[in-house]
């Protein structure tokens, strides 16, 4: 009885089973690519890895990557949150255009984005000169890196934040208004606390996207070297042997950082 039941159950689930098998191929592909590299490095060439860990240039490039992407994310949050709220709450003429513009950095090749940024911000251009007079230089500087990262990671934050705001029923804000809250109060007492989880995960996505950026950054700031640029430089000069340890270290650092962030959001949610 129970066996036939299980069998007929399996039969009814056949579609899901087939999809599961087919779908797991993709997951295995991703895992295998990364695992292969990490495994080879840590097991077959641990010394090379330890050398990278002890190399101040490698460590400073990884820290620079995390820091620059953090700054880019901060700017995206400050400017992107109001934008996301407006997009979530209001319909206006040209809204589709604005939404498409936000998505443009996802679509265009990042080397193209880098060229465009360089053309706009190089010291000899009008905009570049204006910033130069303010003491900000983009070519081969931290600000160049931040700007390139900001350009590519903005859509990730804005879209996540917009979805977060959209998931909140505007009636909740309206009730807050009738209860005596001004528009600002309704926003930071009701809307913001309800959207904060979306905003946070959007910021984490944007940060991750910034860390992974290479093409746009290298066009405007080869130096100071962020980790992806350093990996590329070592690959072209020393091949796999020189670049792989850095790559593995970068992956492990990112993995740990994002696990910590994920767990902290989980903990945060549970407390609510």
């Amino acid at each position, binding site marked *: 009885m129970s066996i036939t039941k299980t069998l007929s159950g399996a039969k009814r689930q056949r579609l899901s089973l087939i999809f599961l098998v087919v779908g797991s191929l993709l997951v295995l592909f991703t895992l295998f690519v990364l695992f292969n590299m990490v495994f080879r490095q840590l097991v077959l060439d641990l010394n090379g890895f330890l050398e990278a860990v002890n190399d101040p240039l490698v460590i400073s490039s990884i820290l620079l990557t995390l820091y620059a992407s953090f700054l880019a994310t901060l700017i995206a949050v400050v400017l992107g949150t109001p934008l996301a709220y407006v997009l979530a709450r209001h319909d206006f003429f040209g809204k589709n255009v604005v939404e498409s513009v936000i998505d443009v950095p996802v679509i265009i090749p990042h080397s193209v984005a880098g060229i465009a940024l360089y053309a706009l911000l190089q010291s000899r251009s009008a905009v570049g000169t204006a910033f130069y007079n303010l003491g900000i230089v983009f070519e081969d500087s931290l600000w160049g890196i931040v700007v390139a990262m900001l350009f590519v990671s903005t859509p990730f934050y804005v879209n996540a934040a917009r979805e977060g705001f959209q998931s909140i029923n505007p009636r*909740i804000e309206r009730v807050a*208004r*009738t*209860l005596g*809250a*001004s528009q600002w109060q309704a926003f930071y007492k009701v809307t913001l*606390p309800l959207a904060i989880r979306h905003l946070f995960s959007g910021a984490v996505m944007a940060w991750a996207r910034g860390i992974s950026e290479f093409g746009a950054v290298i066009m405007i700031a080869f130096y100071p070297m962020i980790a992806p640029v350093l990996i590329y430089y070592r690959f072209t000069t020393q091949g796999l042997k020189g670049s792989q340890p850095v790559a593995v270290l970068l992956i492990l650092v990112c993995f740990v950082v994002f696990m910590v962030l994920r767990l902290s959001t989980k903990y945060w949610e549970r407390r609510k």
Partner: protein
Amino acid sequence: MIALDEVSHEWGEFCLKNVTFSVDRGEYFVILGPTGAGKTLILETIAGLHVPREGHIFLDGKDATDLPPEKRNIGLVYQDYSLFPHMTVEENIAFGLKMRKIAKKEVEINVQSIMDSVGITHLKTRFPSTLSGGEQQRVALARALVIDPAILLLDEPLSALDPRTRESLREELKRIHKVRGMTTIHVTHDQTEALSLADQIAVILEGEVIQVDTSFKVFNEPVNERIAAFVGVENVIKGKIVSNKDGVVLVETGKYRIHALSNLVEGEVNVFIRPESIIISEVRLKSSARNSIKGKITNITQLGATFRIRMDNGLTALVTNQAIEDLGLGVGKTVYASFKATAIHMTRR
């Protein structure tokens, strides 16, 4: 207390067209209309959440059209409760008082007393997602009442509840209104709700207020066919006045004549009769009812405890199951439909 003067507004697919009515202090005012008629939009406009494109809103005789919602002292309760999901019951209710910067001790006392009065004290520390619909609606009500609003706006407050909870909350609304005597505007599509609560009813169809009257008048003397259809006046008969003798009018409908009371003297008219005003009998009645019209039953439909009978004379009546059995009513049977001249409402066509 509240007056809307020629208010017009569009909002997505909803609109308001020259909405004009006024509500007296302490009145229980019901806005009755089908889904999508623009009822919620009226409430939100009164609350100050939309500035109407045209027209004015007066609160206490002062033009409040541009006054922001937080300055109006109006409590609002939505059909979907709209509780703050990140706050406990207690915090939800305290929100309005905190916005008013009232001392902590006083907030506590007020919140406690309102929770006691609507019977939700035991839910104090719970989050909205763990509450039933009826409980959530009580919290929403408490949250609106605790600020002691001058006006209470209720947007289909009972529609999402099961019948038993709905009835108990309806009584609760009645009690609260009696005790506090605050001006209340209650929006609904439910006629029973309107009948049992309203001092005055405004019927709204497609963004237009068609009739503002007492509930008796709305349900028995609708001003036109659209309202008649909406409030369940199922008999709308077209006719022409033949004569009027001291207020007793004879109307020719083509197939038969109807006696009615009216001060209309001549012309084309609509005759309205509620289906529950019609008595069905096997033989022509000798009674005070002035009208007794022969017809054959064409259709019988059960509507809960009553049955709707349609006849080939164009009339529709509501009868009980007992009547169906006692008279042996069935499709094809010939019967008489009788109704009093006083049960008829007539308008010029």
